[in-house]
């Protein structure tokens, strides 16, 4: 039997040694009438070879975006990572150890988590960061929950520029604990706080850059928070810190986000990892695992899980969060990737992503009069929102034409923003090539040309 070492003979010997006649006897505690009768309706097992071939067959039904010109963004970007990341993650001492409960035989995991926390804190511009969350969306929800717990208030204001999945996750999470989620609309592509942020408000949340790729004004965010004595939260695209300031440095209280851009395969959306950074003073309200430095009995530096009293396994219903398993193995990728980039590398990635987005916006708006920047007054980072004068129908035609040309791209935003007919986004990374942009512009010229002709 695959993955089971003991043979029939071993099993028989073991049963004899412990005084049973059959494995069935061991299931005696399960009342007979609730034991299944026949075998399950699941296909017979495959050999490893057959499995690999079966999976290759299924994989061939997919048309992966990441192996061709890819302009898809929307929170997941086709960034590159060095081979080092795959290799090191595959080391089974990392791959197959669990939560480092026993520090003496887990210093490897504990140290890299400590390093991960440190680098995340650096990008976020905060004092501390935790060992990872599930993803950016749930990290956002945990952040507003934490703010609400700290401030003991039952309202949060969330920018409509936050990724729709993240907004919806916050809504789902907060609904049952009866916290009101108010949405601050976008005006011309940036968040308009209006007078939504008041003294009932526990938190104010913005995404940087926002879902349309537009760079938000973090000073506005912190000002809004300050005037209401609320906490400011930024959901951060971490790669942007290669060029843009770290939110913590702008005074943001909690910085969360999705780490996919830091060396994580797009993987059809997961697992990525969420990150969570804030000030030391909030450490006891923090969700998730935390590693700290300490000493062993002989005075040697040693790392350990710490502030566990926040957590579910100790605090149970009073815990700061219910999270237990997190996304460590993916955070390890982030850890290695950040270290591989270093200061210059992350700057290069940020610059190239932005440079390519500039070239893209130029090329696409020149390609046809029927495509314009959706928010021409706004600065974008690596993702750009365009508006097709032909509306969603034209966007769909464009998307299909791109697909036919082997290009992955075009997120039509009206599925989430009903009033944004014809608006779509495209994203660039360091992997975007001039010829990809050219090709895309060419397809645009052709599609929208036809449009005019129609």
């Amino acid at each position, binding site marked *: 039997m*695959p*993955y*089971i070492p003991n043979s029939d003979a071993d099993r028989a010997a*073991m049963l004899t040694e412990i005084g049973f006649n059959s494995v069935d006897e*061991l*299931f005696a*505690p399960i009342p007979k009438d609730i034991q299944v009768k026949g075998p*399950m*309706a699941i296909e017979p*097992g*495959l050999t490893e070879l057959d499995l*690999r071939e079966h999976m290759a067959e299924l994989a061939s*039904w997919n048309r992966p975006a*990441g*192996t061709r010109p890819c302009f898809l963004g929307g929170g997941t970007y086709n960034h590159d990572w060095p081979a*080092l990341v795959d290799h090191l993650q595959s080391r*089974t001492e990392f791959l*197959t*150890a*669990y*939560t480092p409960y026993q520090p003496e035989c*887990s210093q*490897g*995991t504990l140290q890299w*988590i400590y*390093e991960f*926390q*440190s*680098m995340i*804190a650096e990008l976020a511009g905060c004092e501390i*960061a935790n060992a*990872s969350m599930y993803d950016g*969306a*749930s990290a956002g929800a945990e952040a507003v929950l934490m703010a609400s717990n700290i401030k003991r208030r039952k309202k949060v204001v969330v920018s409509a520029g936050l990724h729709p*999945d993240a907004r919806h996750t916050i809504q789902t999470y907060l*609904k049952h604990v009866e916290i009101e989620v108010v949405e601050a609309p976008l005006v011309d592509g940036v968040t308009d706080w209006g007078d939504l942020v008041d003294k009932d408000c526990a938190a104010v949340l913005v995404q940087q850059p926002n879902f349309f790729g537009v760079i938000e004004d973090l000073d506005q965010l912190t000002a809004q928070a300050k005037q209401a004595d609320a906490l400011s939260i930024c959901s951060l695209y971490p790669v942007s810190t*290669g060029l843009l300031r*770290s939110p913590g440095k702008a005074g943001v209280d909690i910085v969360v986000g999705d780490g996919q851009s830091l060396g994580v395969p797009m993987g*059809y959306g*997961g697992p990525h*990892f969420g990150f969570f950074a804030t000030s*030391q003073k909030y450490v006891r309200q923090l969700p998730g695992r935390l590693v700290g*430095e300490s000493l*062993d009995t002989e005075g040697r530096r040693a790392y350990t899980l*710490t502030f566990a009293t926040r957590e*579910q396994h100790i605090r149970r219903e*009073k*815990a700061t*969060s219910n*999270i237990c*398993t*997190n996304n460590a193995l993916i955070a390890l990728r982030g850890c290695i990737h950040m270290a*591989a980039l270093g*200061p*210059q*590398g992350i*700057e*290069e*990635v940020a610059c190239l992503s932005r440079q390519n987005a500039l070239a893209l916006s130029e090329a696409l708006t020149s390609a046809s009069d029927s495509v314009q920047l959706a928010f021409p007054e706004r*600065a974008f980072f690596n993702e750009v929102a365009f508006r097709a004068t032909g509306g969603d129908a034209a966007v769909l035609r464009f998307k299909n034409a791109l697909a036919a040309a082997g290009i992955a791209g075009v997120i039509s935003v009206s599925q989430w923003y009903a009033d944004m007919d014809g608006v779509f986004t495209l994203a660039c990374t360091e992997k975007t090539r001039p010829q990809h942009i050219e090709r895309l512009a060419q397809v645009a010229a052709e599609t929208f040309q036809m449009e005019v002709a129609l």
Partner: protein
Amino acid sequence: MNLTPVPLLFEDSRPGRRCTQFAGADRAAASVGLPTSELRDTPPALPEMAEQDLLRHFTRLSQKNYAISTQFYPLGSCTMKYNPQVNEAIAMQPGWAHLHPLQDAGEVQGALKVMHQLQADLAECTGLSAVTLHPAAGAQGELTALMVLRAWLADQDQPDRRTVLIPDSAHGTNPASCTLAGFEVQSLKTGPDGLTDMEDLKSKLGPHIAGLMVTNPNTIGLFEENIAEICRLVHEAGGRVYMDGANFNAIMGVAKPGDFGIDMMHLNLHKTFSTPHGGGGPGAGPICVTEDLRKYLPAPQVVEQADGYALEVPSHSIGRVRGYHGNFMVLLRAYAYIKRLGAEGLRRVAENAVLNANYLRVKLRGHWRVPFDGICMHEFVARPTKEMKAQGVHTLDIAKRLIELNFHPPTVYFPLVVSEAIMAEPTETESKETLDTYVEAMIQIAEEALRGDEALHLAPRNTPVSRVDEARAVKDPKLCFVCG
């Protein structure tokens, strides 16, 4: 183990050292048109390391870990089984790893097929026909299910049913999830037989009851023999029953929760279905529910339509609890695992897991106190004897001595209902010989404990660090390098 200290990345950082580089970056060009207020002056102070030094850094760190691939790792409740290498090889293929989550369904039919079949297979395993693969881990599965329960209660016009009963042996995530879902927790006593106390249960049922969360097999490793009756009682009282399926490894293919009255449950794919979760994750915590609850499941579900597989939001969905469509790359591995084992193989998992656990239990019962000493399922709980305690020996000492003897210790001090608990779950992927070496070590330690051997307090002495001062980590917190 690598005993040599490894400096922190930041300590080994030197100005100008490079690993990953990209050509063509131009800060000035990139900055054109960006608001100067948001531009930073200097790049983030990440460590500066050369490629080969990074490789050494992380390789050396890896040598400071125990892992399934190097040690017996009977961490109870965590089902630390072999993580098949072939699944890693499969997951690396670009046809999976490079899928963007917002690609059209037509471009990801292979991925959707995997999810669709996995939904079906998990439904078959659990006897619960509606499955969502959305939750990121067990705890999130619990939360999701509790939200489903809230939605169902609302539709039943019973919004005031806010109490969820949870046995005191339950995992901490159960009560924590309740709170997050806006429920109140009422604790149920564990009876002297290690099972839910039926009288206590009956006494606590009533019109305020939203439901019950039960772990089966429970965290003591025992099958809740009255489970059908428990479910009946809760249903009668107008509540629904949630099963924490973290321990599903014990009964897969042997009993289906849907058959014995469970309404909702989660599965930990990273446990039962062998997906790697090094360092603490990632997981996947699909939930399986009865058909009437399907409409509340979170977005999205995979459905089969005339023109292929598609994503669909259930009619009364509670919404999303995370981004995109679930931890797909974990689901993929679980799918491959099921494909490799088939129906028969999955049942063999349970059989061997239970055999291995009972083998350990019977071999050790003469040396350790096994408080609930009937046939166990996939794991069992032991603890030091009175005589050992009299020698000042605690479970912590046992764990540390095991480390010294080259074993990853079992889960300790959990479940809370057994003081000084030592909860060992060998899993089916361990051989008789490995179990025998563990038995030997535990017998040796028992003898040492009875003697009050000093070794137990000094252990471990052959690890990169000895026991760590956890209090100091809180009193004088150093949580990251720069702020440290």
